[in-house]
């Protein structure tokens, strides 16, 4: 079974202001979609629609050929969404944070897998420190470690490069590319210049 996220005629109106309208897009295996546009053009809103958080919009969203309303649970099981806020609890350690995220998906996971993921993302030695004591960049890395833990085909990332140092950015870029090469798909917004990639497509908002 393959997957594909399709949006037809997407539009969003908030308080009588149209952020965007009549947007068609599809993302399938091995594809990366970059949403571009100036501040306030509705990038985050579009990502919230594409990740199934905002259900009030014009047009139709389909996952695997089925309308989102019917395939919502399957869709969510396949989705990894990272928003503006990293979504990690300051009073918990990186290990505990990751354990909760795994459990939300219904899997118990193993401590060693979580350790490996944290090591790989560059948090070796910080596994048991409360996240509140880590820097902003390290906190974001804890969130990024979720990419390595459970294989989800669709990644929806809102400004994933925020607060990350140069090496981290390079590593994340490679990781995104590897995910796409493996047949996953990525939708992201970023102000950062991405290294050229074959499968990269763009959607521009707010150019009227």
């Amino acid at each position, binding site marked *: 079974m393959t997957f594909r996220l399709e949006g037809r005629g997407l539009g969003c109106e908030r308080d009588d202001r149209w952020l965007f309208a009549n947007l068609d897009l599809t993302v399938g295996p091995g594809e990366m979609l970059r949403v571009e546009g100036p501040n306030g053009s509705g990038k985050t809103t579009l990502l919230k629609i594409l990740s199934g958080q905002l259900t009030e919009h014009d047009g139709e969203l389909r996952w695997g050929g089925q309308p989102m309303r019917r395939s919502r649970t399957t869709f969510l099981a396949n989705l990894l969404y990272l928003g503006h806020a990293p979504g990690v609890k300051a009073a918990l350690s990186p290990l505990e944070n990751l354990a909760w995220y795994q459990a939300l*998906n219904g899997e118990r996971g193993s401590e060693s897998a979580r350790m490996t993921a944290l090591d790989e993302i560059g948090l070796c030695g910080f596994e048991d420190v409360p996240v509140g004591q880590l820097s902003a960049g390290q906190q974001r890395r804890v969130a990024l470690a979720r990419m390595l833990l459970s294989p989800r085909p669709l990644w929806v990332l809102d400004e994933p490069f925020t607060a990350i140092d140069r090496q981290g950015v390079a590593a994340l870029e490679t990781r995104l590319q590897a995910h796409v090469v*493996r047949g996953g798909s990525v939708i992201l917004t970023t102000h950062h210049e991405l290294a050229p990639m074959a499968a990269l497509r763009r959607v521009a908002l707010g150019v009227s």
Partner: protein
Amino acid sequence: MQVVEPRTGLAVAVRATIKRDLTLMLRRRGEVINPLVFFALVITLFPLGISPDTALLAEIAPGLLWVAALLATQLSLDVLFRSDFDDGSLEQLLLAPQPLPALVLSKVLVHWLLTGLPLAVMAPLLGIMLALPVESYAVLALSLALGSASLSLIGAIGAALTVGLARGGVLLSLLVLPLYIPILIFGAGAVQAAVLGASAAPHLALLGALLAMALMLAPWAIAAALRISING
């Protein structure tokens, strides 16, 4: 890349959420203790404001204890979803491939375990200070334990509706306190019945019925309210 089939695993998710919230609250013990101190403090104010006359205090004690416990629960509600909202984990909770009402129910359960239940255990101690007759202590604790579960559930609806607002505290009381009135009436009524030597069973049964109804309806209302707040 393989498509992931949705796992069931609701029990795993619920257990992990309960464990996570318990750990969080126990690491910030102040938030657990503050409502209890508030409860004791409010009860201390009444003899000072009214009269230390034991006969008078004993007569109004059931109502005082219940009103003070209700306010203490209400004050502790604002933090129920607030920190999750601020750090973005509420967003992630809403994206979990699990039924949201079940997940919020486990959060409310933790709130009750660390607020309502301690208040119920502590109430007889304050009952002594208000010269409440000893026979009513069991009913006092039981009615508070039952009633505060409904208070947590109903209050969570208000907390979910106001979590996106920068200063939702006073508004939250305005929304929630009118809805608390039936629970206050039956809860204080149970203690009063016990003081008078009558059976408190009807009151407790009604509190149980209210709890059953709140358990049935509130999780859905909380889930809907959270979805609205997260996109506000």
